[in-house]
């Protein structure tokens, strides 16, 4: 087990390195001089000179990368062009808001997706199976930000039962998940965000359940005289590790992929920050938030692999 953990962590290090190279090069992808890209347009000559020296823009690119990594490791992601605040403060604050959204969306998607997939897998080819498969295809084909707009139109504009946008009646600063008034702001974004995971989880669960039900040990259990309910318990237990792994990956995807949903609901999370930084051409914020979100994704994948190997010992031997 320990050997597997070490091997898996060692494998993640070059990936994390590569991810930081990609994020570093984003500044150079931007049209124009990188120095102008990361500084406000009205920066004084002294500021430009200081930053030039500190960032090593007069030195070769590998040196610039080394300097950048040293700063990033210390938590210095540069300064936002539009708000003049340190990038790390902006990103960290918004990351926790995204976590609230994802933290509700993933369990919700798991409950619905797993139940639907398990039922469909128990009756392959029947009407209920076709229905679930159809819903799953729709879930992954739906432009989810459009669904968000439609939900806002129905529940906020037409029926006026739920708030359309924002995070709580008094803003994100005093948001609490224990207050009912604040929770109402979560309903629409969470439903919208869980659409894709519901589609993917129900597909995965359906395939796993149908496959396990066809295995020999199920016939043995049935021959032993176990009730249908007890057999389902066995099937679910066997299907769980694979489905949990997919759920973990979906968590990473949602953390990094909620940009469209957060833009629709003006939810002040990392995706909304990213979308603001694109409009304002705020490259330091863009770079910082993408680096952190990608690292969250790498870490999630690592964690999922380790957890899965703890649950299912067959993986360690592979």
């Amino acid at each position, binding site marked *: 087990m320990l050997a597997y953990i070490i091997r898996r962590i060692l494998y993640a290090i070059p*990936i994390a390195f590569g991810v930081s190279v990609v994020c570093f090069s984003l500044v150079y992808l931007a049209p124009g001089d990188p120095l102008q890209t990361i500084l406000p347009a009205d920066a004084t000559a002294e500021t430009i000179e200081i930053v030039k020296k500190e960032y090593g823009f007069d030195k070769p690119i590998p040196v610039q990368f080394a300097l950048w990594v040293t700063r990033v490791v210390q938590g210095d992601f540069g300064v936002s062009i539009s708000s003049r605040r340190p990038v790390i403060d902006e990103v960290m604050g918004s990351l926790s808001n995204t976590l609230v959204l994802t933290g509700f969306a993933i369990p919700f998607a798991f409950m619905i997706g797993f139940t639907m997939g398990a039922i469909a897998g128990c009756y392959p080819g029947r009407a209920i199976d076709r229905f679930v498969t159809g819903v799953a*295809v729709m879930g992954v*084909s739906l432009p989810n930000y459009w669904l968000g707009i439609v939900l806002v139109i129905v529940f906020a504009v037409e029926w006026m039962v739920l708030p359309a946008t924002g995070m709580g009646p008094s803003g994100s600063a005093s948001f609490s998940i224990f207050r009912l008034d604040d929770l109402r702001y979560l309903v629409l974004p969470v439903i919208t965000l869980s659409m894709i995971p519901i589609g993917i989880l129900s597909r995965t669960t359906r395939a796993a359940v149908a496959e396990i039900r066809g295995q020999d040990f199920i016939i043995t259990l049935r021959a032993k005289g176990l009730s249908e309910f007890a057999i389902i318990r066995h099937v679910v237990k066997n299907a769980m590790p694979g489905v949990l792994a997919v759920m973990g990956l979906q968590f990473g995807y949602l953390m990094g992929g909620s*940009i469209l949903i957060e833009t629709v609901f003006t939810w002040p999370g990392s995706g909304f920050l990213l*979308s603001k930084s*694109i409009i304002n051409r705020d490259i330091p914020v*863009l770079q910082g938030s993408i680096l952190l979100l990608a690292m969250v994704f790498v870490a999630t994948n690592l964690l999922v692999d380790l957890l899965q190997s703890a649950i299912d010992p067959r993986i360690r031997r592979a």
Partner: protein
Amino acid sequence: MSLTSAAASNWEADALPATKVRSYWQSVGYRLRHDPVTLVFGAIVLAIILTAVFAPWIAPMDPYKDSVIGRLKPFGWRGHILGTDELGRDMLSRLIHGGRISLMMGLVPVLVATIVGGTLGIIAGFGGRAVNTAIMRTMDVFYAFPSVLLAVAISGAMGGGIANGMIALSLVFTPAICRVAETATAQVRNLDFIEAARASGAGTFTIIRHHVLGNVLGPVFIYSSSLVSVSILLASGLSFLGLGVKPPEPDWGLMLSTLRQSIYVNPLICAVPGIAIFITSICFNLVSDGIRAAMDVRM
């Protein structure tokens, strides 16, 4: 004379096997022809593509012609079948024209990624250990980004626009296709018939062209076809964020984004572009499922 020809045709009939043997592609075609769901949705996909290609001739009105008094009018208002948008332009004509850029931004990246990723995958699968490690580990890095995030990062840093959006999306899909091609190549590279070709003096390039390509194209094609709907969704998402087309050019994602400000005035109109994206994406998805079922013999 008539006797000999009768005998000849008799002999031919005898020589024919009892059941007709189909080649692989014939059997794929047979399965597709007998799959009504795929046929129907394939026809819809074809209709959507043709509508977009011939947009100037099909669209009932000028998609750029605005009107101050006719803004956000309901369905059927003064001959505007789907109403008008926030600048009074005909929605139906804009939807038909918008399909051009939306479909192009969905299809081109998948095509580019299939060619680039497929080539890299075959090289990685057929090259030595060092080549394989270099290519596949580089791909792993791009795999370590959620796809939306990578697309937004690259096109956002490059400053948006159609071309940058398509470059970003191509980069998003290349690693996944490369993996599929590499796996398929690695599966055949050590089989006996490759060994036989090598023994008979065929060079690496000839082996790849005649013996590997046929075995790799199938899985790569199946996988790429499933990416088209993802690509359409991502491309319209980029436009929605303002990273794709610039106004006043019509595009489904951009229309959704500009109409979003008007949900309190005419909510129904604002939902229309999303329906176009949804229908296109679900049709491509179902056609891709049908192709997979027809081409994957193991299923």
